[in-house]
């Protein structure tokens, strides 16, 4: 189990109802963290087209997470 701080932005924050929470998770990658938060908040939001950062660095979904990391979950950007 790792202690991971998760930060939610824009529609993710509105859906989770919190901007940030610290969780105890059995997560290996950023993707595992994302799936845990989706399960936790019963998300039916589309989970494609999102980006992730770890400790203020852009990351990939298969980037490893370590105990104490902050994972930032970014919904699709404004684009256009």
């Amino acid at each position, binding site marked *: 189990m790792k202690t991971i701080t998760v930060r939610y*932005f*824009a*529609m993710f924050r*509105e859906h989770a109802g919190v901007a940030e929470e610290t969780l105890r998770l059995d997560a290996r990658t950023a*993707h595992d963290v994302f799936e845990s938060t989706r399960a936790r908040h019963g998300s039916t939001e*589309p*989970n*494609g*087209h*999102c*980006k*992730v*950062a770890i400790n*203020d*660095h*852009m990351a*990939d*979904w298969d980037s490893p997470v370590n105990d104490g990391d902050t994972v*930032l979950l*970014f*919904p*699709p*950007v*404004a*684009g*256009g």
Partner: protein
Amino acid sequence: MIEVSDAPIDTAALQRSLTNPAAGGYCAFEGWVRNENEGHKVHRLEYEAYEPLVISEGEKVLAEARERFPYLEARCVHRVGLLELGECAVWIGVAAPHRDEAFKACRYIIDEIKVRLPIWKKEHYASGDSGWVNCERCAAHGFAD
């Protein structure tokens, strides 16, 4: 240099800061809040940004543009918070020796920041509804499921 601002963008002052005696061409782009999007009448817009990564990714974009289209000076400012119709949401200015680099660098910068920077847009409609605007083309830019 890239900046995030919660106050109206002073484009004239920004442009003056790009003065360079070797510059023969200057290209600027501004994104304005327009009155409709995909058939919805827009009342105002709200921008949210995660500033630390806007800055670090934005600086990468400016460096890439300089490598591809050697310019002399470039700056970008993105607004956050509530914006009314007609307000400037994003400003980019590029000064270069000739117009070709100025146009191409400016276009590169706006195209990349639109898809790469953590900036979200919420539209407030005349109907009272509101909604976050998604990027339909993000799938083409390597976002994971």
